[in-house]
């Protein structure tokens, strides 16, 4: 049981939720992967796997373009 819990925690948050594609419109999720300044956390910090970190990177960039997230700074 304990082993399983540990395995679950060791996996990336999107893998656990079985997310296929990270949605750029879902800023609430993306915000958890970024600092208050809007910079994306490193994989070490966010715990994402390589595939999902790449998706998150693209999603944040798209969200920034659509003014859903800041390029820099919190409240713009």
């Amino acid at each position, binding site marked *: 049981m304990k082993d399983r819990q540990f395995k679950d925690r060791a996996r990336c948050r999107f893998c656990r939720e079985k997310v296929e594609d990270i949605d750029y*419109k879902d800023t*609430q999720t993306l*915000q958890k992967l970024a600092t208050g300044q809007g910079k994306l956390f490193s994989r070490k*910090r966010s*715990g994402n796997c390589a595939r999902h970190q790449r998706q998150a990177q693209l999603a944040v960039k798209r969200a920034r*373009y659509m*003014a*859903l997230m800041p390029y820099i700074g919190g409240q*713009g």
Partner: protein
Amino acid sequence: MKLYEVLFLIEGARAAQDFDGTEKELLAVLEKHGGKVRDKVRFEERKLAYAVRGHRRGAYLLAYFDAEPGAIREITADLNLSEYVLRTMIVRVEGGQVPEKKILGVLDTRPDRSFAAEGRDMEIPHGEGFHDLRMREHDEIGDIDIEASKDEE
């Protein structure tokens, strides 16, 4: 024919005045180039993360449509001519299915709300200067909390 998703960022004033007309015009552009609109969702006027062409507020229109890949370039070119559309983004939808859940997250960094959401009682004292300082402090605390909760998951 492939399924695409388009997100329009529309000037706040224009959206407040005539969202119906704006929606019609924009969807007409898609249809002009052979697009077939499958679904659409409006997202009301909100504060933008940063000012776009001097506009601090804007509304969003999300639409899903089928189109030939070659038509996308023409659609984009047409949409760029529009004055009240601040930004457009067309993205291919993998799998060819319109997602059931259509969300457009609100960017909310206000600490009072995040604390309320977590069910905590936190009184922010009022008063100039001091208030601002406290707000900023809470912001940082909020960030750390998010990280901590991640570990607990």
